[in-house]
């Protein structure tokens, strides 16, 4: 199989997952100017949720739905308990609080499930390979196809919601000027809750896809992935839906290509590389690749 094509597919896979998470970050940041570090940990919550439900005998689709519900529940509790009281506090307060929530979640699951690495075993169907193309053919697993289809569908769906529905317009209005939005009769708390529901659901799906693809999971997995996805959102331009999606995909591709193509030993710099990209992009485009200049009244 063509090495480049294979790497590209791997990159797109990872990137799609990053995109889902990055969109969640973006939606919440757009409205609240809040960087939810705990967002990445919701991935982890979803994975454990799905794993437990499958162990209890639920079939895969129900387990996934169940884990999405569990994750959304966590997300809503966090919003209500930790972020809503800080609604009018400065950037710093919300930043450190979300870090604290992240640590809380990680340690909670550490306590209950121990740090042990576990395996998320999906039915064999997902590892079956499909061969595309003739000579110089590309092999792709069903899992990859599932990832592309699911993320593509979700991104399209969320995009539609944001552009066309009443609630979506309300969300964009709140992101631009929450005071004026309130005067239009928009219930800011309801919009925030909706944003968290969407974001948490996306993170949950991302979590299940990620663990399905990369198999191994533990309580600390979410934070790092979340940070990278956040970097992706920032690179694309945080607050911008398209930017987040694009940033996610771009970062995934770059990260995998970097790992595959650069000389031996440099591969371990993978994560550091992500941040180097971030720093470089922000140097030239301080608002991200697609970001609009920040000018917000509230």
């Amino acid at each position: 199989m063509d090495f480049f094509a294979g790497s590209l597919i791997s990159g797109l896979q990872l990137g799609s997952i990053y995109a889902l998470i990055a969109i969640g970050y973006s939606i919440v940041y757009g409205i609240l100017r809040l960087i939810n570090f705990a967002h990445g940990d919701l991935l982890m919550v979803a994975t454990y949720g799905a794993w437990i439900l499958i162990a209890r005998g639920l079939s895969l689709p129900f387990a996934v739905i169940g884990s999405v519900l569990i994750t959304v529940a966590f997300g809503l509790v966090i919003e209500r308990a930790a972020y809503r009281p800080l609604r009018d506090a400065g950037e710093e307060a919300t930043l450190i609080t979300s870090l604290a929530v992240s640590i809380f979640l990680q340690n909670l699951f550490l306590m209950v499930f121990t740090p042990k690495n576990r395996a998320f075993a999906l039915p064999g169907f997902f590892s079956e390979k499909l061969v595309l193309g003739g000579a110089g053919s590309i092999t792709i697993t069903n899992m990859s196809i599932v990832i592309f289809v699911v993320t593509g569908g979700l991104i399209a769906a969320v995009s539609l919601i944001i552009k066309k529905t009443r609630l979506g317009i309300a969300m964009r209005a709140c992101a631009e000027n929450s005071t004026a939005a309130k005067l239009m009769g928009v219930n800011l708390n309801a919009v925030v809750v909706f944003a968290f529901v969407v974001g948490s659901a996306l993170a949950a799906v991302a979590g299940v896809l990620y663990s399905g693809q990369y198999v191994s999971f533990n309580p600390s997995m979410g934070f790092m992935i979340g940070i990278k996805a956040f970097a992706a959102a920032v690179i694309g331009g945080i607050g911008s839906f398209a930017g987040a999606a694009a940033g996610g995909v771009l970062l995934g591709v770059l990260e995998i290509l970097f790992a595959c193509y650069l000389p031996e030993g440099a591969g371990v710099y993978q994560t550091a590389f992500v941040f180097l990209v971030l720093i470089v992009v922000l140097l030239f485009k301080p608002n991200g690749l697609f970001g609009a200049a920040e000018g917000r009244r509230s």
Partner: protein
Amino acid sequence: MAKALFANPLFKFLAVVAAPVAALLYIYIGVAEYYQIVVVMFMINVILTASLNITNGFAGIFSMGQAGFMGIGAYAGSLLTMTAELKFSRIPGIPAWLAEAHLPFIPALVAAGLAGAAVAVVFGFPVLRAKGHYLAVMTLGMIIIIKAVLDNNAHLTNGAKGISGMERFSTLPMVFAVMIVSLFVLHRMTKSAFGRSMAAIRSDADAAASLGINATKYRMTAFVVSAFFGAVGGSLWAHLQQTIAPSLFYFKESFSILEMSVLGGMGTLSGAFPGAAIVTFLPQFLANAENGFRVFGFTVPALNGLSNIVMSVIFILVIIRWRGGVMRSSEYIVDAMFGRDTWAGLLRKETYVDFWNILREGLFKNNNPHRLEEKSKQEEKDHEKENR
């Protein structure tokens, strides 16, 4: 009465200087080594927290990367104090120039600080161009990059396995001395023109610029100074724990320092004391619970990570309820330690007279209702006089 008491120089001296020093002396001489180590840890944490408050509180630069500078200082300091033989044996492949490099502890400490400062200069250029959230995330990236470099240069650092065997130079008196000197330097900085410019920039960068204040220069200076002391703290840490590894200077540690900073009060140096105290000593109490205990006949199993959970909950509650931390914006402790008010006050007779009067009032007030009546009658008369 309390207000007058706290303002009295003798009280300040006793509470902030004499009592703690006496306590430290007692601990040094009379207490088991395990507890001494915790106290030394506390003092190191004070240095680390104070260094973070310079950027986060004074300069308005929200950095989450202090652990990175700690790590730089730990490695630089250790590599300089370890003997050549030790280095050859612990770090296979170490180049000769690094193995031969050797300095006594204190110069090595300063060198470690400078190493941290140098790294800050390098990162400062891109990182400080950003603001707010973006800056914070860039500092996270900074820790990641530093760890990656430490992990992957095994010929210099022995990679992820880390290094052990440095001497325990961080004794109680030594760390105490470094802490005092560091706080003094930082204190002078905040009180100087530099400190005032910093405050101006923090409140309104544009207005400050129109006054001719070069924000970039000041921010960089704050960042570098903070890194210097962070690295010093790291080196002290290394020479206490006697073992270092890149994973020990990562997110968890950065967050710990951040916790101390926020809990104690981010905008002041004094906040370092209550903040470091809570984060250093509280988990010690919780550590017992982590191993399981019996309550009402039930056995609570070992709860891994309980102290972290409790700390993070406390942290969230504090932010929601007491955003300014313990000290809010009060520099009471550090001012009392170094302020001219305290030391000059000790030379004046009135200080001692006032102190005695305040004590008398406080001690005898409750035992003498007669005096109370007299006092309130006197107060009424004074009040009437005022109103006329």
